[in-house]
């Protein structure tokens, strides 16, 4: 009797495992097929692409690249540099100042401590779009229209990064360390910069990646702030490509531009995916 039941269970288990693999393969296909076509078509020439779909890469990657770089309507190189600059600065501002804020609330028991913590949690989920009107008008009146300041400096107040940092501090930043630094005569900011920051490195790395990526991908605000061609970031270039008369374009260049916007992030992700996936579970406030 018992043997029969066990055998039956094993059969059910095998069946479940089979279904699981099927579903996983299906989802993998769904997630990757678009990127596969993107990769293939970025390496093919315009006439090739027009002829129909192929499963194998072409030989025109170099030609597409040269054409794209010399395309006067699409300042791709400056777009990449601008995106890189804005995203890097945002990542630095967000991680440094949010760690600082988290440390202030975690390590010091001042009177407004709890109020400050609650306040940050309250505003964590408020979308940036709802303040966009006032934000754009304010930036215009301060003379920051068409500048990178409105896209980078506000990252100083990043509630989500703050929340991750304070969670991490609760689990792995013993306050005795600060005590010890004080006894050795360190000032508070010195202790933060020289002792706390290095101890927070793993958390900072994860959040730096997330902030970098979300700034790199950001389209809504930059589109409202940036005007001049030299300052455009990658998402705006893509949007411009979309609103231009589409069929006149060299499709090889179109695919390559999309690839240039996507693949840097993909490569970084593939190198660091273990930490990133762990970071999502740890912070778990990525809406």
């Amino acid at each position, binding site marked *: 009797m018992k043997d029969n039941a066990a055998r039956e269970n094993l059969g059910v288990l095998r069946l479940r495992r089979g279904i699981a693999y099927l579903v996983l393969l299906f989802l993998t296909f769904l*997630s990757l097929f678009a990127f596969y076509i993107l990769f293939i078509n970025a390496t093919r020439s315009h006439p090739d692409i027009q002829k129909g779909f192929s499963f194998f890469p072409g030989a025109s990657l170099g030609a597409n690249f040269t054409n794209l770089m010399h395309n006067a309507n699409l300042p791709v190189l400056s777009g990449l540099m601008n995106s890189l600059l804005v995203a890097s600065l945002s990542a630095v501002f967000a991680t440094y100042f949010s760690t600082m804020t988290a440390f202030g609330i975690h390590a010091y028991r001042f009177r407004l401590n709890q109020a400050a913590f609650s306040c940050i949690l309250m505003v964590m989920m408020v979308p940036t779009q709802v303040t966009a009107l006032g934000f754009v008008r304010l930036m215009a009146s301060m003379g920051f229209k068409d500048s990178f300041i409105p896209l980078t400096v506000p990252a100083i107040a990043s509630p989500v990064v703050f929340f991750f940092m304070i969670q991490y501090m609760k689990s792995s930043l013993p*306050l005795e360390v600060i005590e010890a630094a004080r006894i050795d005569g360190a000032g508070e900011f010195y202790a933060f910069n020289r002792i706390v920051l290095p101890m927070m490195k793993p958390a900072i790395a994860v959040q730096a990646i997330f902030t970098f990526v979300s700034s790199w991908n950001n389209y809504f605000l930059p589109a409202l702030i940036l005007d001049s061609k030299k300052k455009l970031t990658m998402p705006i270039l893509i949007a411009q490509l979309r609103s231009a008369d589409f069929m006149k374009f060299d499709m090889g260049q179109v695919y390559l531009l999309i690839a240039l916007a996507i693949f840097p*992030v993909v490569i970084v992700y593939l190198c660091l995916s273990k930490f990133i996936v762990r970071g999502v579970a740890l912070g778990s406030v990525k809406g």
Partner: protein
Amino acid sequence: MPGTTLTKPEASSSQQYPASNGANKKTKGVSYSKWGYFFIAPFFLAFAVFSLVPLISTFYNSFFENYWVGLTQVGPRFVGLQNYSTLFSDGDLAAYAGNTAIIWLMGFLPQIIFSLLLAVWFTDLRLHLRAAGFFKTVIYLPNLIMAAAFSMLFFTLFSDSGPVNSILLSMGMESPYRFLANVWSTRGLVALMNFLMWYGNTTILLMAAILGIDTALFEAAEIDGATAFESFRKITLPLIRPILVYVLITSLIGGIQMFDVPQILTNGNGNPNRTSLTLVMYLNKHLFSENVGMAGAVSVLLFVVSAVLSVIVYFSIREKKQPKGGAGK
């Protein structure tokens, strides 16, 4: 702990905080506490300048008539709540809110179903899936992709002469299917992209929640002869309910903000016939045409809705994050 609902947050937060404060008291002198203000000052300063002032100014502007007709500016003139009454009476808002809700639901349903399935499978020790690391990496990947580029990619892939149609034609279809000229295929594409971008994230969150459950419960259920589905329904589901609520609400807030994907896919028009125009696309239209009053009214409305949802998230985080953070380590 896991059985408690979100309606009673006071009890747990008041237990939680005095305890941690008591521990702090032992380890530090009184004279240092004022330093906390210096550490949190930059954050609150930046928040006040870049979020609070704009928010107040948005509210303020929503009470004025202020727009452009050609090159002449109308207003600004105080009109009280007139922008709001226009907003609610002309029917556009309801239609766009409906579009947003439909597209969000079309993406969210498969998202939560597949995420639950995957989370259960990945955490099931007896199932012992191989290459779980590879699959986790793949399913999370689309989340990091630039939504604008992803959408542009889908636009090219599903255009009338794009690769998908060329594959369909080679499989024997007679004429290309015009994905972006049909209401439900356009909405479906937006929903598909939202689904692909978020199911990996949700899977990881649910996995963390399931891994936090005491394994003895599952062992006991197995000894009592429960099938996998039974222990999922009777143990897993009730115990991860707080996280499910969290996922639902944050996804709703994300859904309200839906912009990049439909904006790029339909070039801001919400084609066909504005059936895929979302609330934030509507806001964006007003922002670009500098109809300040109406943009303000739409913003305030979105703010109120997301603020209500945020309050729910706030309480769910305060109550539930403590045990979860420990489980994630």
